[in-house]
């Protein structure tokens, strides 16, 4: 619940022209970008929780979200929207954060169902995270347990309108207040938590480096950070091949 517009950007590097100033051509170009962005959104195909069961109806013939220019997309790299459908268990939340960091900006997070807001009906569960916006900036919430496809579509239309009007840029908040988000992540996942994406470098790169990008939590991260190794998967099989044949 932070109005990110109140957080100053003191980053080195290019300063993004804010709307209204700049030359006419840039303004037209910005408008065009916003229009195109809002009309072509790819939603990451990841069913994180039970609300996902209302997405197939929303995607297919009956409620047909393709009318809005929204389609599911299988890879995070090409997706614009991360739809967090309900409760996020700690295990899933790690994957969500990894996924989110892999997505290209601008990216939008939608939290649907009660659980993403305040724990929902799993508020007393040891296994789920309670407030999604502690870990990721969230652009849009859709209420319901679970929201009907119509409600999902209403939320998506709202998001489209916000993108079109240039209002939905919560993703920048992740860079500007990375320390805050990282702190909450560390609190949940332990001090050694580390993702393969270098968010701080990205913040510098995009010119979104803010006074709260770095802090005690990022300092802790740097202390623990180990060089990224190629991931070695261990299937954990008893016998090396063919667990049961």
């Amino acid at each position, binding site marked *: 619940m932070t109005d990110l517009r109140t957080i100053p950007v003191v980053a080195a590097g290019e300063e993004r022209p804010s709307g209204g100033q700049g030359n006419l051509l840039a303004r037209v170009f910005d408008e065009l970008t916003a229009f195109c962005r809002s009309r072509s959104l790819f939603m990451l195909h990841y069913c994180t929780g039970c609300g996902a069961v209302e997405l197939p109806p929303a995607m297919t013939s009956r409620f047909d979200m393709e009318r809005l220019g929204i389609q599911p997309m299988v890879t995070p790299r090409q997706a614009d929207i991360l739809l967090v459908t309900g409760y996020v268990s700690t295990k899933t939340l790690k994957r969500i954060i990894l996924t989110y960091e892999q997505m290209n900006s601008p990216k939008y997070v939608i939290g649907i169902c009660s659980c993403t807001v305040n*724990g929902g009906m799993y508020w007393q*569960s*040891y*296994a789920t995270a*309670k*407030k999604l916006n502690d870990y990721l900036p969230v652009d849009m919430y859709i209420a319901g347990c679970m929201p009907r496809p119509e409600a999902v579509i209403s939320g998506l239309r709202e998001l489209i309108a916000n993108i079109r009007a240039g209002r939905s840029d919560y993703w920048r908040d992740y860079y500007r207040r990375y320390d805050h988000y990282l702190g909450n992540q560390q*609190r949940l*996942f332990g001090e050694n938590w580390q993702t393969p994406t270098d968010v701080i470098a990205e913040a510098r790169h995009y010119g979104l480096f803010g006074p709260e990008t770095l802090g005690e939590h990022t300092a802790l991260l740097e202390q623990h950070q180990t060089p990224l190794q190629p991931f070695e998967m261990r299937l954990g099989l008893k016998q090396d091949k063919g667990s049961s044949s």
Partner: protein
Amino acid sequence: MTPTDAPGHDVTTTLDFLLQEVDGLRTRWVAPRRLRVDLPAETLPALLELLKGRAGYVHLSAISCVDWPDDGQFELVYHTWSYELNVLVMAHIRIPRDPGVYLSIYDLYRPAAFFERDIHEMFGLWFEGSPDMGKFILTEWEGPPPMRKEFDGEAWVMEQFGWQEYRPEWLTEIEAKGGGISKRPEQLRGDKGEDGTA
């Protein structure tokens, strides 16, 4: 196989007769198709072998674990079903909570591997001879086995997480007039049954 027939006299006698072969059993028909068997932990493999071999109990429906901290015991319930007799046998055993070790029945029933691993994760029970006691569900969990009664999940959550601090306009208005939230739901759970001079 005549599955639609209710278990008749002969089925119950067959089972009752068969179960006489194992010592130390207490059997009770709790419903027409439900036979409860209480037995000492060490006789369970013999019972299951008997049921599987002689009465067609090839289906292990579930292994349930119940924590009885006051008795210092875990209760393990093996629910087995015979496709021939169409009767569910629930074998109840109790094992001491400490050290909480029991034998795996994986060599008799392969589904046991899933249930035993699950019980190991949730209750911390160890099954000797089970093929895989590695973590499956709680890979990111470092706390105590959560299903044990002494683990108070709600208290843990209250300590670990914060809640949304909503500031809606209506609440501000009411607070300006001297009102406000008089009882939060979390509070309600805290003082249940204690001094309630509300």
